[in-house]
């Protein structure tokens, strides 16, 4: 397998791998897995208002999967939470120069992000509803 420099770099130094210290405020988490594809992702997103303050992730999977998670985590920080829903896995695949058969794994990553998004919506609703 040939890995792009982008993938190699992200895979080797995934700055935001890990999780927030307990008690970090305003954190939502989302998780997704696919056993047959051999991948699992978990994201934690800490928000301040509608801005993403910080992101952490854990990932089990191939280099593309880990690099993709690292890329997403890095890219989201400082952006509006709407950016989560805007992420396009086809585009991410091209950015990472990953072969097309890796798309399935990226869609699992998308599921994990969607779980974060849903949690954010729930939170917003419950805040509104309260």
């Amino acid at each position, binding site marked *: *397998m040939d*890995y792009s420099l982008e993938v190699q770099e992200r895979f080797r130094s995934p700055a935001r791998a890990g999780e927030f210290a307990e008690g970090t405020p305003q954190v939502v988490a989302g998780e997704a897995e696919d056993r047959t594809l*051999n991948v699992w992702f*978990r994201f934690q997103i800490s928000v301040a208002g509608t801005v993403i303050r910080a992101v952490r992730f854990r990932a089990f999977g191939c280099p593309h999967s*880990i690099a993709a998670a690292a890329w997403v985590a890095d890219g989201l920080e400082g952006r509006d939470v709407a950016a989560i829903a805007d992420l396009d896995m086809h585009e991410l695949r091209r950015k990472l120069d990953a072969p097309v058969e890796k798309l399935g794994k990226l869609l699992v990553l998308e599921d994990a992000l969607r779980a974060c998004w849903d949690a954010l919506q729930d939170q917003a609703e419950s805040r509104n509803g309260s």
Partner: protein
Amino acid sequence: MTSKPIYLDYAATTPVDPRVAAVMRECLEPGGDFENPSSPHSGGRQARFRVEKAREQIARRVGVAPETIAFTSGATESNNLAIQGALNADSARGRHFVTSITEHKAVLDTAAAMERRGIEVTYLRCDTQGIVSPQQVDDAITDQTALVSIMHVNNETGVIQDIGEIAERCRASGALLHVDAAQSVGKVPVPIDAWGADLVALTAHKIYGPKGIGALYVKPGTRLAPVIHGGEWDGGVRPGTLATHQIAGMGEAYELADPDREGAELRELRDRLWNGLSQLDNVRLNGHPTQSSPHVLNVAFPGVDGDSLRLGIGEIAVSAGAACDAATPEASHVLSALGLSNALAASSQRFSVGRFTTIEQIDETIRRVTAEVGRLREIAAGAPAWAGN
């Protein structure tokens, strides 16, 4: 090999030994023995002499007479010729074929092709350590069984089957036995005569000979239908202009391939690697702890994806298993046969050592694998149980 990464993929293929390359050069250089070994002129006779010398070198290494050795393009073709040849021969006593699910694709795909041509195939399972018992073979043979094909050394795990005992069962029940010994030569003894096997597939490139040349041992009297047609070369089993430089290289490689000398060294390197790696939490050896070839070590690192580990350890050339599987994402059929889950199989690495492996390389490998397994398990902390972490 200074600028090269650490190479621990000798089971996929080996570099050519400089002494082998020197013999090959004698055919490739200007003024060398380039002539067609089938030509009647003096140059042709000199080339023929090289071919016959190589045949003797090979025969001597595996304990048989030179005229029982036919040259092919490698073990893939040898396996095909043995299996197709024996099952298609007029003399085949029935249309039943017995093999095992841990065989190389060259055997399994040929078995599947024979099934499509109406041959009934029994695929024997192995135990969780990769062993197919002689009794299983015995039980599978019927009076319709024309051929049994069991590999000697498994290419992914190094597991060794008890060919002598299996051969005895085959002989007793009148079935021919073919043995894929592509991985064996130079690492463990290949006493074909003592085994009493009928057909044995050999190759050069796993033992410091050139790629693209192999041989098939054919016990005298064994009838084979040819797979490739075209004249009377080499006893009629396999036509085509004999590739003198390749054959001479294989001969020299086999001459040099003494398991009595090298086997212990390989085992020491392999054991040192396993000793180092088994210090890690939660690793497992795939295959048999003792009944295995000294050059292969297959280890599962639960919780660590194999591709990630391979990329993470950087300039160390190892393999998921068979090189041919590299492009296909499915789990190794051999590791599945040992009962490993998909994830566990995908977390496995084959390390294979060879003539040019050093203790320093082993130690460096242990260091790098240990660090990377730790790092990747940290990134995957909290992953579900199926991932193995």
